[in-house]
């Protein structure tokens, strides 16, 4: 992280409010202490995040005294893009991928931190820690810079940028153990609580606001659930769990038998979909 702060003119930390972002932010606070991290946080808001995430985001920025940029793709909002009617694929493309590119261009950021980990998904396993993006934000997996030792090539031309993944070599279990060890605040949605959910296509979707319309035969139930991963609420599946403390979550983790991205509906859209999204500029 210090490497980025030292070598780039205008870095930014992409803050997704999730547990990985929380860890990344905590590491940044440590890396620059007693200074504050010399870059702003940026959240690309799809307008469909859980309300608790937004509250947590604003509270965190206030608590740490950091600059927070919130970017919403207004064009997408005007077009009425939403995960229910537009489909998860188009929604993600417009409200996340396009929106992120807009924001990076608007502020002219030349380096952006992201909380992605190599253990999340197959194409991410090949991601560099310093990952080069062309001026149009595209990723070319066949033309990546070799990354030796801890020496990172940070040279770019105008308009090009680097995505930086400080948590590349962390596993999901590492994340939870670290949150536990360092007592890092996370969004309450990770803890089990009675929440109003709807079972749709085998996944438990939380009805976070009135924009979610019930289909025939569906009904809202109060169930004891929590989330292993957080995104747009209509695209994020809850798991039934009674883990309401960090200790209980870690205990649940070491006996877990499904990977966390299962709760992400966007991955299973089509095979190798993550790789496609990344080539287009998704994180």
């Amino acid at each position, binding site marked *: 992280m*210090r490497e980025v702060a030292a070598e780039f003119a205008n870095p930014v930390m992409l803050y997704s409010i999730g547990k990985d972002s929380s860890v990344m932010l905590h590491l940044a606070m*440590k890396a*620059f202490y*007693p200074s504050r991290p010399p870059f702003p946080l940026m959240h690309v808001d799809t307008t469909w995040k859980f309300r608790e995430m937004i509250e947590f985001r604003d509270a965190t920025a206030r608590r740490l005294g950091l600059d927070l940029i919130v970017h919403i793709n207004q064009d997408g909002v005007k077009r009425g893009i939403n995960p229910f009617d537009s489909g998860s694929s188009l929604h993600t493309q417009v409200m996340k991928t396009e929106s992120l590119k807009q924001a990076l261009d608007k502020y002219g950021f030349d380096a952006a931190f992201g909380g992605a980990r190599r*253990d999340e998904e197959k194409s*991410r396993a090949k991601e560099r820690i310093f990952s080069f993006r062309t001026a149009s934000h595209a990723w070319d997996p066949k033309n990546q810079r*070799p990354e030796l030792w801890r020496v990172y090539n940070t040279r770019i031309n105008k308009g090009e940028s680097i995505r930086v993944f400080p948590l590349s070599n962390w596993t999901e279990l590492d994340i939870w153990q670290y949150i536990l060890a360092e007592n890092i605040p996370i969004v309450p949605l990770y803890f089990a609580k009675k929440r109003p959910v709807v079972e749709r296509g085998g996944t438990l979707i939380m009805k976070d606001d009135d924009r979610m319309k019930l289909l025939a035969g569906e009904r809202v139930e109060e169930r004891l659930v929590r989330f292993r991963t957080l995104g747009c609420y209509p695209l994020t599946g809850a798991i039934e769990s009674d883990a309401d403390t960090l200790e209980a979550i870690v205990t649940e983790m070491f006996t877990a038998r499904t990977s966390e991205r299962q709760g992400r509906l966007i991955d299973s859209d089509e095979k*190798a979909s993550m790789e496609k999204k990344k080539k287009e500029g998704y994180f």
Partner: protein
Amino acid sequence: MNAPTDLQSFLAAQERKSLLRFLTCGSVDDGKSTLIGRLLYDTKLLFEDTLASLEKDSRKFGTTGEDIDFALLVDGLEAEREQGITIDVAYRFFATDKRKFIVADTPGHEQYTRNMATGASNSELAVILIDARKGVLTQTRRHAYICSLLGIRHIVLAVNKIDLVDYSQSVFDRIVADFTDFAGKLGFASQVAIPLSARYGVNVMEKSAQTPWYKGPALLDHLETVDVDTALADRPFRMPVQWVNRPNLDFRGFSGTVAGGRIRPGDAIGVAKSGKTSTVARIVTMDGDRAEAVAGDAVTLTLADEVDISRGDILGATDARPEVSDQFAAHMLWMSDEEMLPGRQYLLKLGTATVPASISELKHKIDVNSLEHLAGKTLALNEVGFCNFALAQPLAFDPYKENRDTGGFILIDRFSNATVAAGMIEFGLRRATNVHWQALDVNKSARAAMKGQKPVVLWFTGLSGSGKSTIANLVEKKLAAEGRHTYLLDGDNVRHGLNKDIGFTDADRVENIRRVGEVAKLFVDAGLIVLTAFISPFRSERRMTRGMLGANEFLEIFIDTPIAECMKRDPKGLYQKARAGAIKNFTGIDSPYETPEQAEITIRTVEAPPEVHAQAIVDHLRTNGYI
């Protein structure tokens, strides 16, 4: 994994676990991905949904019939699935009760050796796979050598597909003997050979009854117990300064990751480049000051004295300082398609310092199959050489074998920003003994190398008003915007000075072009990309100029515009005057224009705007390696 039942013992067990980073290497189809998939599967690290998707994929892409194809777990990218080979480095994570592992899966394909070096640079151990049916191959030797070059001390020789040679001990023994014959010269600290079948799990998790003659450990057993400690914490203290931490005027700290040794408040430290010394006042972290920091810790140090220190400096122990020099000798693995050029300026990044550097001499190349030293002038992709380097400024460093972090560097191309080489410093060169550090004669290639381009004449020819100058100007602008060194010769800057004594008769036109050709030749010798925009109507003069220059240093660009169009444009009103008889010997009116027969580039200006043509010329230069 036998999961402990309560959280405390689980966490305690996690904390005790050490981390082993290793890489797998081997030739195409030796079964690397299958082996890693097998390790992930057998250590129960696969989640149910991953397994379900694996079973689905196995039926779709698999090469193993009804069985699960473990390689599909690991081969992440679409292109690889289709071709059935791994093309990049992938990192995988698994754990047992004893250790956590990070595996770098690196490709066996010859052109991807650079990825293997990348994986090796961060690994402590290498598993080299050999197909039992094929034995030791060229790539096997290459991989073993690169492992040793990048400082890997521990090797596992995995003789895979042992099931396909009927679990034969004699086949195994012969392969091990072949390998040892070669690898013995590489000085690995440990080398263990294991007969394996990744597909059937033979000797992976536990020893198999199929190979009763094999007395060594199963693969996982060995990986869990092999001692790879390099005792980095016991080496001299080193910390490359990454960032100067100045939140306010009262605090000045130096942030970095300790690359070697240990440090406590009160310890003396030296700043490598300036030679100044001070003592450590505090080791600052967000969780409070620390009593000690050891290799691997990321900390911020404050010092007792005001010492001038900036990013790129190395803080070191005062009794064992790093070397400081502007020249050193290093092994280098070339990782770019463009060959290495001695004398060309690259950027060298070592630790946190980046300085301009050039290779002053390629002492020898190394044949990775025989380890023989070969003479050579350049290095091509995947070649290894031993070189002397000359830096624009002195740098602090250690020999690579003493410290990877302060002895390993990358070279970056100044124009493409690509990482073109990985280097491992052997020893510093002292100024006194190497006074003539730039052994190169300053000649055309040296000058061109400094400019990062191949000199060439772009000879624009065509009728008056055809658009030569317009397009040549645009091309020059585009090249200048890329930082290329160019010069445009045209009627305006030549006719008014150098050639003001000559007119427009045929003889004068020949002399005009001869002089322009000679000037262009000198500029090419200076390493420039020269653009000339003259009507140059005669083939023989164009041919003469071509003959004055070396092969590929003359590109004839025919600006093909019909005379009717030129007359219509007539930007300087010359056609009108010529037709009125006011100008004699005007090309196209009363003097001939000989159309080029073999122009490298022909441009029809009526078909597209000048901008498009200019870009096409720049693209031609790029495609043909001039820029």
